[in-house]
């Protein structure tokens, strides 16, 4: 028997699909979302491409590049689809960059970025799962310790 999910198609909004199973709630917490939006979250859904996956549908809100960059760090290879008038107007697979600024806070309390108003600067060391290195204090941070700021 095939499984079906009782989630309506979006008229306008954003869909994060093929999230690594178990990462949806972390992904949701990392996003900058306006209040009072309808959000559907599927966790541990059966998937053709992945054995299991998570999915997030956000009604009436277009995710930004910054949101997409955060999701790429949590769940590389997830896809982001932007929907307008029931049509997918843009669909991209998310990949972590080689290097980036901001997005996460260094967990090292002795790092200068915790004391000065400076954005973190990060080198991506491992791509799946992602780990990054702070270019100020050289601390390597695995993805489960990311704190999005």
């Amino acid at each position: 028997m095939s499984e079906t999910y009782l989630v309506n198609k979006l008229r306008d909004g954003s869909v994060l699909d093929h999230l690594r199973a178990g990462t949806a709630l972390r992904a949701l917490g990392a996003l900058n979302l306006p209040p009072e939006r309808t959000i559907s979250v599927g966790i541990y859904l059966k998937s053709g491409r992945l054995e299991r996956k998570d999915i997030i549908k956000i009604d009436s809100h277009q995710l930004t590049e910054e949101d997409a960059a955060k999701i790429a760090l949590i769940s590389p290879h997830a896809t982001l689809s932007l929907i307008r008038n029931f049509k997918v107007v843009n669909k991209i697979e998310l990949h972590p960059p080689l290097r980036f600024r901001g997005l996460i806070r260094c967990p090292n309390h002795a790092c200068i970025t915790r004391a000065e108003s400076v954005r973190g600067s990060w080198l991506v060391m491992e791509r799946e799962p992602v780990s990054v290195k702070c270019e100020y204090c050289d601390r390597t941070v695995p993805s489960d310790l990311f704190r999005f700021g």
Partner: protein
Amino acid sequence: MVSVSDFAGRDVITVNEFRRDEIVFLLDAAAQFEQVTGTLLAGRVIATLFFEPSTRTRLSFESAVGRLGGSCVGFAEAGVSSQAKGESLADTVRVVEGYSDLLLLRHPLEGAARLAAEVAQIPVVNCGDGAHQHPTQTFVDLYTMQRECGRIDGLHVVFAGDLRYGRAVHSLVSVLTLFNARITLVSPQFLRLPEEQRRTLETLGVEYREMESLEASLPEADVLYMTRVQRERFTDPTEYDKFKDAYTLDMSVLQNARDSLAILHPLPRVQEIAREVDVHPHAAYFRQAHYGVAVRKALMALILGHADKVLA
């Protein structure tokens, strides 16, 4: 082929930014600068921003500047800087760079020197940023090995004491990988070299071993690098009390070592080297502190573009 131009205007933030041939070039330059005094840095002003206490690093830099005819401005503790009034490091750097040609920075927070270098238009030398890096100490340590042992390549170096918080150890261990050194790490479990550094050694295929007995580590060693257990790095004083006397090097411990063992220590020492060891012919730690002047003379002259007047 390394030349003086590779150092001109350069920031010195971590040792990892230096290739092996650049380090060898600097150490050769230091040897040529040992006896040099004069007016090479006349009219140049060096800023010493020391937000944390320092004796050897600050004084050896100031001595080096003085011997080359330059002058210093700055402060030796955060309490007398504008930081005490709430000024950010970035603003302090922006102000002081207008007064000087080179900025020497010590700061308790990791990455402070990197931030200063991003902000400043003049070169910045990291003189210690928290438990992170202390690159000029590493150059001095390497120079000491070269002077005391006649080489660095292939030495068997034993590190003993606080390998967890000791920034001098972190910097030196990573650079010794460029010189095919054999490395032995002696510490209590709690003060082991951080996992990240051990992983790096493994990734690089560096031969190293860990042990807890100082005596057992010594028979095959060429260099013993002793370190102090640093009270200021412990958040829990009871942990410090537990480990502060972990190792004491005395003449009876040295009976396990070769006569030629060179004994280094970045200083200050507390009790980890007994006073009786000071007369050992290869107790090199005071000479090591003195070599700092030659290394820092060479480094500043190179950065400020004046070294070609001395180097053959």
